[in-house]
């Protein structure tokens, strides 16, 4: 397989939130690359910094948050732009948002404004990024709705979001994100807020669209099944750190980090019979305001090495092709 060109490279990204309770290190040193047309899954428990990573890429971190270090390089037509250096209200980042990089959000109910029709909200993004008339934009929006399998797109385009079902709203959301043919689509928990039956449809749809349109995809989820369905590569996050990243088949077959191992063990499998015993990770995620010293996972880790794990942050170690892990159990060859 020939390697597609590099599209986005995130290097040592750290995004912190500053509030009266203290500094919340939501993302604390995360690095990953995405190549054109590739699908990356970012997985972890809630509060591990997955969503903030995505918001950092688009520079739409909520107002108390700030990118403190790192680079986010977007490579387009041989030109490299460091998104971190852009003014977050400026013209440049606004052209990238919705145009080069689009995002699908978690709750389609809350993500659409209830006071405008979905057509209004979709044509808005089309007219923002493409030179076209109102009629042409509407035409394209209907086309896009058709493509995501919206029933009767000529009618539903004039529907208000509150009149649509959850699944239809999520389809409209995807249509809106894809309407300017982005090079990268970030889907933040795209199936969390919809029914299980709809989840499968939405995943299928995203897979098809990603293949047809040749775009890269970042799927943020706590659901490993979604990742196994969609992704080529996986990054596991824990308390703002990228603890392990590897090709999807490697991570499911041969997980290295004790957290990844624990995550995979805690997923129930269908067809295992009623005697199946779940093996949850012991303890709970520490408060992000009081992060553990050393490896963030050492408080819950079954392989904890005293005086090592709670003292030193493990460096990132390359174990094989594209398989990187942060854990003291492994040493660099």
């Amino acid at each position, binding site marked *: 397989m020939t390697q597609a060109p590099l599209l986005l490279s995130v290097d040592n990204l750290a995004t912190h939130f500053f509030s009266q309770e203290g500094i919340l290190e939501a993302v604390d040193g995360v690095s990953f690359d995405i190549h054109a047309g590739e699908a990356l899954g970012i997985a972890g428990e809630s509060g591990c910094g997955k969503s903030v990573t995505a918001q950092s890429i*688009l520079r739409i971190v909520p107002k108390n948050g700030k990118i403190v270090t790192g680079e986010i390089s977007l490579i387009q037509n041989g030109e490299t732009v460091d998104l971190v250096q852009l003014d977050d209200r400026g013209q440049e980042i*606004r052209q990238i948002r*919705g145009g080069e990089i689009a995002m699908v959000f978690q709750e389609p109910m809350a*993500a659409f404004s209830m006071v405008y029709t979905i057509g209004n909200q979709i044509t808005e993004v089309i007219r923002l990024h493409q030179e076209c008339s109102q009629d042409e934009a509407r035409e394209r929006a209907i086309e896009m709705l058709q493509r995501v399998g919206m029933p009767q797109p000529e009618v539903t385009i004039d529907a208000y979001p509150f009149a649509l079902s959850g699944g239809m709203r999520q389809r409209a959301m995807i249509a809106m994100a894809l309407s300017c043919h982005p090079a990268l689509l970030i889907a933040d928990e795209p199936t969390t807020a919809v029914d299980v039956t709809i989840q499968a449809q939405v995943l299928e749809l995203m897979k098809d669209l990603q293949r047809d349109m040749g775009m890269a995809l970042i799927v943020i989820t706590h659901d490993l099944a979604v990742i196994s369905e969609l992704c080529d590569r996986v990054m596991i996050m824990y308390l703002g750190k990228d603890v392990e990243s590897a090709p999807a088949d490697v991570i499911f077959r041969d997980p290295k980090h004790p957290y990844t191992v624990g995550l995979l063990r805690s997923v129930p499998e269908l067809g295992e019979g009623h005697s199946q015993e779940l093996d949850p990770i012991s303890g709970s995620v520490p408060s992000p305001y009081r992060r553990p010293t050393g490896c963030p996972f050492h408080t819950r880790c079954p392989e904890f090495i005293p005086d090592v794990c709670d003292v030193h942050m493990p460096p990132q170690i390359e174990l094989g092709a594209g398989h990187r892990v942060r854990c003291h159990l492994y040493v660099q060859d």
Partner: protein
Amino acid sequence: MLSFILRRILLMIPTLLVVSVISFIIIEAPPGDFMDAYVDQLLQQQEAIDPAEIDSLRLRYGLDAPSYVRYFRWLGNILQGDLGRSLEWNQPVAKLITARLPWSLAISVASFIFAYALAIPIGLYSATRQYSIGDYIFTLIGFIGLATPNFLLALLILWYYFVATGNVAVGLFSEEYLVAPWSFARVIDLLKHLWLPAVVVGTAGTAGLIRVMRANLLDELERPYVMVARSKGLSEGKLLFKYPFRIAMNPVASTIGWTLPTLVNGELLASLVLGLPTIAPLFVGALLSQDMFLAGSVVMILSSLTLVGTLFSDIVLAWLDPRIRGAI
């Protein structure tokens, strides 16, 4: 949308009928009638009272009939456009009210414009720059405005105005325009006098509205749809007005309906202090002397204005938020 407005207007009819019953009951509630108050007055002036004359007056004004008869008689006359005769002023009620209502409305509208024109931009500024120095300054001024009684503000402004210009800012017209026919110059003169009661009556409301606007907008700015709009590449300004502002206006618009009557309440003290020929002092006088035709008519007119205001705010709401259009 049109059917929404029609439905709203039709609904106003039964509401008005209920209002008429309630206003009649309230006016009838105090013991005695106008004649008792009249007798009291004569006694105070130590004039001779002829009981036969009082009784014949009672008969003439229909005060001897049972309440429900008087209610229907009163309502029937109103429907024919006859508001009755003020017993105290010995003039048709319609004439008394039409002489004063325009000034009340002028002050209401002027203070309404003052309040909204000031509150909406300030609320917008305070919310988008939360905890900035400007936000704190506006908050402080707002709370002072909220806490200052109308009449005190009126007195203070009168005093400053007198110290600064040597004129007394009382009434709605300068002397030379008081009885002059309408002209452009007279309108200008009116506007010169109108700002003072408008500011006095509108200040408390403005301060309240700023808080409402700021709080709503702060809530809305945190909503996911704002982040979605940002992720589409909209500029901050366009985004603000298209999405959160429109929703944040919703509670502000719904207060339009009751602005009219509260302005009449607020107007009373300001009118007394500033010597304005408005409805409020007339209304209080009528209530004190149990001049039921006058008092009843004022209540009816204020209620009708409230309903019109509510209709107006409902239309604005329906325009702002499509979810409301489907409801009644």
